[in-house]
């Protein structure tokens, strides 16, 4: 958008398909739909067999733990924000100045960003206008939220209707000791008609689904402006190499549907492939890396999942916008008891993260959960009328109130993205290998906050509760998912002023070349304790304006 509107001749090479009729329309017709099966078949995402990623826990692991779908965000025109429940909190002042304001942590590489909250705040305002964020800044809690992320003006749209399950969870937050401060979460989903797009009608299938009515536009809003200003979008055009000559990126090599290779030359090359694929492309291109800074300090947040089951009513969390409320108290390093618990774990401080309040799952997800649990409960007959009873009871869907804590992930040198030495995709290119384990910080924060997550649900009136790590690790090898499904992917090309410890500079330019820029979450030096997408967009906007100048 910034480049096209500044008069550059822009070509957007998108690896995936285009499912929109005409991206120059405000609300283009698309082929996205409320179809859980389609999502399960990886529509608009990298196919897990044809384009797998590999995942392991330690640098010393010879074999991957998992080969297939890993953080498989959409790969399609419109980008990852095509499937998104569009929660748009801002990062905090302490995120941008984490080293200066909170201090270092042994074993991690806490760093300051090249800008402060004060500098990025007007860019947050601009992105909120561009993509349309609904909410009420007056309802945001003074402590801790507004103290750390102050607001200068109202949001462009008022909040949409609150979801019952989110209200129930919010009440549990208020009844906790110490009381939390839940609020209606700002989100990039229209509550009124906005910018030629309709108001959301609360169909409930946000995550993992494109919006059939474009009430939730995401990055497509910027793409529309780019195309209107003359940018060309080429779908199914897979960039496999950045071509360089000395300190210059000269363009890219890309392959088409038939596997034929093409060249596209350019004065500037911008990488915005999702942190994992940007790093993969940097590695496939053998970009200069004298200090080994490409692919390190990968972050994806470390989630804690709470479930509250209500036997007296159906909470219908499938009506709405996934969740409508949040609480920020666990993102505060000074939450009562947090400093002491951190010190007991040998840390100077820790942070949990924001809470998303009041979610559930859809019927296929629910049914498969019962299928898996029946194998444990009824090994002699893990199916049949008891399965049907569970589906009718709907304890893990319609009677469920879910809470998710988005635990901050420190930047560790040993959490990396690189090329798998064995596994190749269907075109023969080495796939991305993610090496990741939570550190003491993530696990200590999770252990401190996990009882609170469960207690919120008890105080909310749930008849049965639990709170567990979302993903497995050395600490809890049987817990949760094999691979985190956080959909938050950051780091790998971190920004910094010193090329010895960063891959990109203070405006996202790759240090080792004159004209290669990175414009996705891979530039993040720290992960924050909130949903990152608004910050990814604001950072990309801020950086583009600066390096183009």
């Amino acid at each position: 958008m910034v480049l096209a509107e500044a008069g550059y001749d822009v070509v957007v090479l998108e690896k995936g398909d285009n499912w929109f009729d005409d991206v120059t329309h405000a609300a283009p017709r698309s082929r996205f739909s409320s179809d859980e099966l389609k999502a399960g078949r990886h529509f608009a995402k990298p196919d897990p067999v044809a384009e797998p990623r590999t995942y392991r826990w330690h640098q010393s692991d010879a074999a991957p733990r998992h080969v297939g779908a890993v953080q498989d965000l959409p790969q399609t025109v419109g980008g990852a924000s095509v499937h998104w429940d569009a929660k748009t909190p801002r990062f905090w002042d302490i995120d941008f100045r984490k080293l200066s304001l909170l201090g270092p942590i042994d074993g991690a590489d806490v760093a300051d960003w090249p800008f402060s909250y004060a500098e990025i705040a007007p860019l947050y305002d601009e992105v909120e206008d561009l993509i349309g964020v609904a909410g009420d800044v007056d309802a945001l809690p003074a402590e801790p939220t507004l103290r750390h992320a102050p607001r200068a003006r109202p949001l462009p749209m008022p909040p949409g209707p609150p979801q019952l399950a989110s209200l129930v969870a919010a009440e549990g937050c208020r009844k906790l000791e110490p009381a939390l401060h839940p609020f209606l979460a700002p989100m990039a989903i229209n509550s009124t008609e906005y910018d030629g797009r309709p108001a959301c009608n609360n169909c409930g299938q946000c995550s993992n689904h494109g919006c059939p009515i474009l009430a939730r536009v995401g990055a497509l809003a910027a793409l529309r402006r780019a195309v209107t200003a003359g940018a060309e979008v080429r779908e199914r055009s897979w960039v496999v190499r950045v071509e360089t000559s000395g300190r210059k990126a000269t363009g890219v090599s890309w392959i088409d549907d038939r596997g034929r290779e093409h060249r596209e030359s350019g004065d500037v090359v911008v990488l915005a492939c999702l942190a994992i694929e940007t790093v993969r492309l940097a590695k496939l291109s053998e970009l200069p890396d004298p200090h080994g800074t490409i692919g390190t300090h990968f972050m994806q947040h470390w989630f804690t999942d709470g479930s509250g089951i209500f036997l007296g009513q159906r909470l219908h969390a499938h009506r709405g916008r996934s969740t409508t409320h949040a609480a920020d108290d666990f993102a505060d390093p000074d939450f009562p008891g947090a400093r002491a618990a951190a010190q007991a774990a040998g840390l100077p401080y820790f942070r949990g993260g924001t809470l998303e309040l009041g979610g559930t799952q859809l019927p296929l997800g629910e049914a498969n959960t019962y299928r898996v649990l029946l194998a444990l409960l009824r090994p002699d007959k893990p199916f049949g009328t008891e399965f049907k009873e569970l589906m009718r009871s709907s304890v893990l869907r319609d009677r469920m109130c879910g809470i998710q804590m988005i635990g901050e992930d420190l930047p560790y040198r040993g959490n990396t993205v690189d090329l798998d030495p064995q596994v190749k995709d269907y075109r023969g290119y080495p796939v991305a290998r993610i090496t990741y384990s939570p550190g003491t910080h993530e696990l200590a924060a999770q252990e401190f906050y996990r009882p609170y997550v469960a207690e919120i649900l008890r105080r909310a009136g749930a008849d049965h509760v639990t709170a567990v790590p979302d993903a497995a690790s050395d600490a809890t090898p049987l817990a949760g998912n094999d691979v985190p499904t956080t959909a938050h992917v950051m780091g790998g090309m971190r920004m910094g002023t010193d090329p010895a410890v960063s891959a990109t500079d203070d405006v996202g330019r790759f240090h080792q070349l004159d004209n290669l820029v990175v414009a996705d979450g891979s530039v993040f030096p720290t992960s924050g304790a909130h949903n990152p997408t608004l910050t990814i967009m604001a950072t990309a906007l801020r950086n583009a304006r600066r390096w183009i100048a």
Partner: protein
Amino acid sequence: MLTAHERAVLEAAAARLVPGPDDDPGEAGHPGAREAHAADYIVMLLGALREDPPKVFAGGPFSDRRGGKRNDMARFLPLNDAVKEHWGARLDDLGAAYREGLGQLDALVGGDFAAASPTDQDVALAQNPRVRHLPAGIRGFTDLLFQHTIEGCYGVPEYGGNAGGAMWQSIGFPGDVQPRGYEADEVTNSDGPDPVTATGIVADLLRLVTSTAPQSPSSRRTQSAPGKTSRAG
């Protein structure tokens, strides 16, 4: 393509996994895999690439169930050559897994699974026989069949199952609701009391799920020594 016998085994097996009124007395009045035509879903999946456009991704944005003027979901999406190739390979493997798995079910009852007693069928299915070409994460043929029977029961009907949306009705799920959506009061208000008694399998599942629940923070505060909360990474 499945033979007539394989088809009969498939239907019988699916009906054990997700029974209806004719399969289990506990399911009087509640549709199951037979009523949903879940076997049709599986047959459509296995033959998906023989159709044009392939029956892999249903279209959009809307069905005609909730105000859509036509059923966009019924018009399946074209696949590009690469995607078609991956799905072709995937479905070849799946077809092989099914033929082998359905044959294993016959072997486990010593002849014809479709003609065996429900008890014998259940015992055979509980073996979860290993077959080749299972997708990643699936340990046996019963797991595979159960997963697909679930999809054939509770997925959108355009894929061949969930006939008439009756399985959604049976679990109180409205299905896809675009373009009508929900009004604000439907989102915010309770529908009123709707109690369920947790007995039998429901109670057992709740006990399992909550076995991982942490103690309340107040009980932790009464513990004496600090340092118990940390766990090394």
